[in-house]
């Protein structure tokens, strides 16, 4: 079985996500379940973070509904390769809507980190950035060095269509950083930050 050499990756996921979100202080952030949720929480809890602990495959699509509802805000989805692979068709759905304010950041370590580090399809030759381009998203690219965070930050704020950044991260098994698992609380807190009252 030939697999991608994930040991060649140099990007530290926690540092990259912290750097990205520090440079996008006003972004509305949706996280995919597992490590991306922990990475975003570890970068600092914010009312404008919506953490998913389930609904695998749904993160980018939650981001789509949010981006369409809040066209004047910047929406950033931070998810993993396994989560995005489960919602791979959603990339075509997002492209059909072409929101100008949506950035999808896939932290790709080539593995299913939460379940024992089994190889994911991106270790077996699937390129999610190429999938996104083939779905019609022109601003879809790979990031191999932490210094390229500026390109992602620029994409978040540029309003030039959907941005899709595939970040080649080290396959580290980091300590978990656990945000609230109470979805109702996280939802109401997020909506309140946008000025919406609970029911």
């Amino acid at each position, binding site marked *: 079985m030939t697999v991608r050499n994930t040991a060649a990756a140099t990007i530290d996921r926690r540092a990259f996500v912290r750097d990205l979100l520090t440079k996008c202080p006003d972004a*509305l952030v*949706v996280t995919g379940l597992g490590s991306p949720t922990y990475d975003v929480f570890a970068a600092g809890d914010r009312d404008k973070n*919506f953490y*998913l*602990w*389930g*609904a*695998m*495959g*749904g*993160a980018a*699509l*939650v*981001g*789509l*509904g*949010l*981006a*369409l*509802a*809040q066209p004047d*805000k910047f929406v950033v989805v931070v998810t993993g390769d396994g989560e995005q692979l489960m*919602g791979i*068709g*959603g990339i*075509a*759905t997002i492209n*059909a*809507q072409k929101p100008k304010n949506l950035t999808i950041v896939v932290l790709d370590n080539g593995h299913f980190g939460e379940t024992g580090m089994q190889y994911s399809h991106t270790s077996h030759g699937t390129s999610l950035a190429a999938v996104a381009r083939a779905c019609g998203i022109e601003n879809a690219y790979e990031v191999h060095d932490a210094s390229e965070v500026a390109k992602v930050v620029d994409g978040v704020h540029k309003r030039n269509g959907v941005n899709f950044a595939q970040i080649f991260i080290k396959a580290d098994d980091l300590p978990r950083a656990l945000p609230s698992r109470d*979805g*109702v609380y*996280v*939802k109401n807190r*997020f*909506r309140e930050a*946008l*000025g*919406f009252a609970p*029911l």
Partner: protein
Amino acid sequence: MSEEQPHSPWQEDIFNVLKQGNIRQVAYVPDAGHAHVIRRVHAEPSMRGIVLTTEEEGVAVASGAWLGGERAALLMQSSGVGNCINMMSLLQSCRFPFLSLVTMRGEYAEFNPWQVPMSKATQGSMELMGITVLRAERADEVEDIVSAALDAAFEGGEQVAVLLSQSLIGRKKWIRN
């Protein structure tokens, strides 16, 4: 719409209920029974039609819409309900308001037996996921029931689906003349 397509009055009723109920995002996997509403939504500037590759995407889109302060609805046929099951965890875990309209196949003069198993499981599987299921059998009750479901979802915070009976849509013509 450049050309008026044939449709039943209850289909226009559904569009009017959605529009007057401030539904802004209408996610769908197409079905002939929803075709009129889909056409109307795409022609309506205040609404956005969102074509999906699989129905579960619509559950996530509707949740994101509510996070951002908008109301959404998911249109699908009964076969699509099965695709949504795990994603419906999102609705329960976060108590998102949710409205879905489901055109039934596999229950009335069905020609295609492959539609029947999911048809039989449609109501039960949604109820197992905590969704309130209403049903419209007659054209003259569609408007009231969809309107009641919309209010239960967005005023009462419930997760509600309305099954639109296959008898409303009628026999599918399988042989082209």
